């Protein structure tokens, strides 16, 4: 992919680059986000992008950066980001019981 980068690709989002971006609870108190990339090149590019920057994730999910954990898994071409759930699962203010739609803010990050 890196060899065939076109000028228009400089504004591609994570959703456009990744095979899959997904979110789920990891227990009632954690949210976990998984990104699966199609190629080693795409993995390297995304692993070096704002996607793995705790400050970016903190701003996107309105949560303190200190609690955010980022895992780069090159053998799987995958990136995992886990953070304390901004709202405890099933509490009155919770909008997404399984956290199943919480990947959307992450998927919108421009990865270049």
């Amino acid at each position: 992919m890196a060899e065939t980068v076109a000028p228009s690709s400089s504004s591609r989002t994570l959703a456009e680059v990744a095979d899959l971006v997904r979110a789920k609870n990891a227990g009632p108190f954690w949210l976990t986000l998984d990104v699966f990339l199609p190629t080693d090149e795409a993995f390297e590019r995304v692993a070096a992008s704002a996607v793995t920057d705790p400050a970016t994730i903190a701003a996107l999910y309105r949560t303190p950066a200190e609690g955010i954990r980022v895992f780069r898994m090159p053998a799987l071409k995958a990136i995992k980001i886990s953070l304390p759930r901004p709202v405890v699962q099933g509490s009155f203010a919770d909008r997404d019981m399984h956290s199943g739609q919480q990947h959307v803010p992450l998927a919108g990050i421009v990865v270049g």
Partner: protein
Amino acid sequence: MTDSLTAEATGPAPSPKRDSIRIVFPIGMLGGGFPEETVARGIRLGADAIAVDGGSTDSGPSYLGAGVAKTPRGAAKRDLRVMLVAARAAGIPVVVTSAGTSGTDSGVDWLAGIAQEIADEESLTFRLATIRSELAQEQVLGALAAGRIRALEPAGPLDAATVERCSHIVGLMGHAPIADALDAGADLVIAGRASDTASVAALALRHGIAPGPAWHAAKTVECGSQCTTDPLGGGVMVEIDDDGFTVVPLDDTSAATPMTVAAHMLYENADPYRMREPAGILDTSAAVYTALDERTTRVEGSRFEAAEQPTIKLEGSAFAGYETMSLVGVRDPEILAHLDAWLARLDGELRRRAHAFLGLEPADYDLEVRAYGHNAVLGDLEPGGSVPREVGVLLRVRAADQATATALAKTANPVLLHLPLAGMTHLPSFAFATSPAEFERGAVYEFVLQHAIEVADERDLFRTEFQEVAPRG
């Protein structure tokens, strides 16, 4: 309530060392429905046991709070019948963990009652072990006073008031109580709340198989076909030995590839490499995933670090009030073009009426308006977008009693029906979904424990009983 039981007191007979064991895990949750052929094929392939998990916190705090199963009774019965009939014919054990979704004592009793009905209807006899995992508040308060409660990230220290709020508290058992029950001759184990991995780990560890492969195999198959190319497929079998484990899908159309097997370690885990169990930590960072053929994958190199201090993770759900909801549709383009302003006006008007008409103070209730189609799912995180074609406005109110919650929702009703935009000279009417417009949701709960209890032995909190089940005449 006793902490030790007959089986432990007399000491179960140790099981013989085996080189390997084959376990069928037909589906991620009992009652989800799997093809009968799944179990039959697993047995033809030499299965030594069948395991399935019956629960999860993933559907929210209501099930633990109320002690009621998420799964319909008939669906749980159907799945248990398929497993039990086949397993009795083959002479192999069945282990079901986290009975009744949350693993409360009521969930164990519910499933044990279903098992008795199946025995009646299928003329089966078997030795049933039930293992209870529900804890009394006093047990947890005692551990708290003794300094034996640890906070798990991101929770802070536990206080007694939080424990006292819990409707139900369960401890997540590890492998040991289940292994003991099997060693004591159980044909069917119905366990309360357990780690997702406890059943498969118990089946392997009781035969002396190395803990690294045992726990990693257990974690891999805990959602059935989720570790294959077809997450909706017909279950998996795992063969575990001292060096590793092999994952075999139980239908023809799916495959367990190194990618699908390895990727499952990410699913619903905060850390994809290290997982705490009561007895220690599974470390998969050095695991190597190899395709044996197009459909089966072998995993080696998994490690397990025994913990110096066994801990049992707690789950607790507390009563949080009563809820009433209403749903109204908005399709008027003029309202939709100014939806945020309209929603802010709606929220303000509902709170004004709560005080003016019902005399309620803000501390007496919670109220929230969610505009489905606009920003209901992501709230403040919503990056924005175009004007929607329509939105569903869901009103949720919560109060200390149902009557107050419903009174508040009824007070909101005319506003949800007619609220104009500021400056509108006519009174719009919106599209209620139902009559009456209010849905009473009953009692609602919230998860309040993210803590673990230090124990001398991981069996300490769990209570096992045996019963010879036979058809009732």
